[in-house]
């Protein structure tokens, strides 16, 4: 071994010792650096950016997207071209798809997705956005009804809370149907994330900014919806962005009454009052849900009729037949709203601000000629006063199987306050023969509830039986 080799050996030795010192001891978790993702802002400038893939949405024309060399923004080399199909085009009903990555990018340093767009005609693109990763799409953000025309225009979609986008895979998505049943073409170019610094005055809202108060029970779960974020763009105009719940932080004022998860799902677990609010990026959102929980829910009596003797419209105990709707929102006279809920797996209809409501089952209508009774379970949470009246109307659509046409028959039964009870379930089990004016029940199509001084009640187990 000559000196040189010795020196080299010693050098390596010391390095080895160093390595042992550095790595040999127990691994300190504090030394672990979080995985970082690339911060590449480009989605499509003149071509697909690194790692970008495209997938068409189900039911859309899979060939709607192509790369175009002819029509480009600012004479760039290529743009994205989207061909929206005509109505009833056999290739697909609309144009839509996702540009996504296999591994995420860190977009937390940007505040907007921007792109240029023009179209072969003036049109309104249904939706464009980012954060759709063909999976959970946890941080999806989008803008609806984008107005485009035959000139190139720059569009800005503000990022609701950039700090969330540490490993985002959904770079861009779009969905657009025909305009007046006819297809057309639009182009998008220079798609990139930017740090503009000129997006200002964020305003966030849950429940569309309303302060709602609801009576409820332990075991009821409900979703916080109506999520909106509004930003002021560099031209001083506001833009509303559709956001997913994960951008918000939801807070319950009393976790022993109600809890709320990261997705805005509220679970009522106790009795008393809890207020659900939210923040985004440290800014309080408008809107709140005050829950007045009355404690344990009293379930409707479990029906005991054999399934083969039942035609069920609404019950968790039976398989229900097709129903068009449980609230027709018949304008202009109906005031009734729906606040249906689910409690420990039991679905319940809740009619609020009630005057009347129609339940329709027209496709197909119900042949109840073999049935003998109508069952309806009803719970009135508020005290009943002397003037309270409840009516049940059954409508048969006649030979034509549709409302109107001169062949409809119906009959209404009236129940006064003496025959109603509050804060407990009342099971109506009405012989169909009591509906004396109902000349046929071969084409039953509607049940209509009507009431006076009856603002709020729950309904469960609506079915015909024999």
């Amino acid at each position, binding site marked *: 071994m000559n000196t040189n080799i010795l020196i080299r050996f010693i050098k390596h030795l010391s390095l080895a010792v160093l390595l042992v010192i550095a790595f040999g001891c127990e691994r300190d978790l504090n030394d672990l650096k979080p995985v970082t993702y690339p911060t590449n802002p480009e989605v499509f400038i003149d071509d697909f950016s690194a790692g970008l893939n495209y997938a068409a949405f189900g039911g859309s024309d899979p060939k709607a997207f192509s790369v175009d060399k002819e029509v480009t923004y600012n004479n760039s080399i290529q743009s994205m071209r989207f061909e929206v199909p005509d109505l009833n085009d056999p290739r697909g009903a609309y144009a839509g798809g996702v540009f996504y990555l296999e591994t995420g990018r860190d977009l937390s340093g940007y505040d907007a997705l921007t792109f240029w767009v023009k179209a072969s005609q003036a049109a309104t693109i249904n939706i464009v956005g980012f954060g759709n990763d063909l999976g959970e799409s946890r941080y999806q953000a989008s803008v609806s009804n984008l107005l485009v025309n035959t000139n190139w225009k720059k569009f800005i979609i503000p990022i609701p809370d950039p700090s969330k986008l540490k490993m985002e895979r959904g770079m861009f998505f779009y969905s657009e149907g025909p305009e007046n049943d006819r297809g057309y073409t639009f182009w998008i170019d220079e798609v990139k994330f930017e*740090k*503009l*610094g*000129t997006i*200002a*005055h964020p305003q966030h809202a849950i429940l569309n900014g309303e302060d709602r108060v609801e009576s409820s029970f332990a075991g009821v779960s409900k979703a916080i919806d109506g999520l909106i974020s509004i930003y*002021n763009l*560099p*031209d*001083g*105009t*506001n833009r509303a962005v559709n956001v997913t719940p994960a951008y918000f932080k939801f807070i319950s004022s009393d976790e022993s009454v109600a809890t709320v998860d990261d997705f805005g799902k509220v679970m009522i677990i106790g009795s008393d009052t809890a207020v659900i609010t939210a923040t985004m990026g440290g800014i309080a959102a408008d809107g709140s849900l005050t829950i007045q929980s009355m404690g344990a829910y009293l379930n409707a009596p479990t029906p005991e009729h054999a399934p083969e003797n039942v035609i069920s419209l609404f019950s968790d105990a039976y398989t229900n037949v097709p129903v068009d709707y449980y609230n027709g929102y018949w304008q202009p006279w109906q005031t009734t709203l729906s606040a249906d809920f689910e409690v420990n797996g039991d679905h319940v209809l809740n009619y609020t601000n009630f005057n009347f409501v129609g339940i329709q089952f027209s496709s197909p209508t119900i042949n109840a000629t073999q049935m003998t009774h109508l069952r309806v379970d009803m719970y009135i949470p508020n005290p009943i006063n002397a003037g309270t009246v409840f009516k049940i109307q059954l409508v048969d659509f006649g030979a034509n199987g549709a409302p109107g046409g001169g062949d409809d028959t119906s009959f209404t039964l009236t129940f006064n306050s003496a025959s109603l009870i509050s804060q407990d379930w009342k099971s109506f089990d009405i012989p169909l023969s009591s509906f004396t004016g109902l000349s046929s029940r071969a084409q039953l199509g509607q049940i209509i509830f009507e009431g006076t001084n009856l603002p709020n009640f729950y309904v469960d187990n609506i079915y015909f039986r024999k």
Partner: protein
Amino acid sequence: MNTINTFSYMRLISFSLLFLIITFGCKRDEFQKLDQRSWELTWSDEFNGEEGESPDTLKWAFDIGTGEGGWGNQEFQYYSDRPENISMDGEGNMVITARNEPFAGAAFSSARIKTQGLFAQAYGRFEARMKTPYGPGIWPAFWLLGSNIETVGWPQCGEIDIMELRGQEPHIIHGTIHGPGYSGGNAITKSNALINNRYDKDFHVFAIEWDKDKIDFFVDDYLYQRIEKSDVNGEWVYDQPFFILLNVAVGGTYVGFPTSQTPFPQTMVIDYVRVYKEKI
């Protein structure tokens, strides 16, 4: 190219780069280098009133109504003295609020106040710390008019716009003077744009420093425009007292129409207005 040549070439480049840095560096510094002055406060309003309180009538007078021809600019708003349009916020600011509401025959309401008849000064430093409103067709201003406007009229009286902004460009402010022969579209004006930011996101200090030879325009103590007497292609009418105005206009020839996309209400939040004279 041989080695020596390459070397000299590189040296030449480095030298020119150095030279460029020196020249440009100096030029800007030169412009920003201002005469040492010591200022003495002569008038101020800190707007420290209770929430909802109206402006101090010992300091401010109101302009009310729609003016003649929309205050000469086809503006849309009705200026009122209601707290809904102008009042203290209880946090040390005065707030001028432009609202989209039918009011006294106009489609919008807002406010405009002035120190006319109460305070005026020739020369000195005039400054305001404020947060601007935004949105297409919104036109906030912090400005001065010559006190002799009643006798000689406009533009003979002179006008110094310390800060104006078009709400559709919330990142650009304009400093302007109007006088005889150089008013309206021919005014002497310059803009200052923020890069990756805008004026309505935070408070900024807008100021002029004015003496018998020139008017310097500042944003946050950055000098962006100097108008010297010799720059004025007309009569220099800035040797007499001027009074202060603050307002938020809606619409008008300068800013254009508000649109359905203009967010309302819009507020201009003013932390203070201070006036100084040079200490001799």
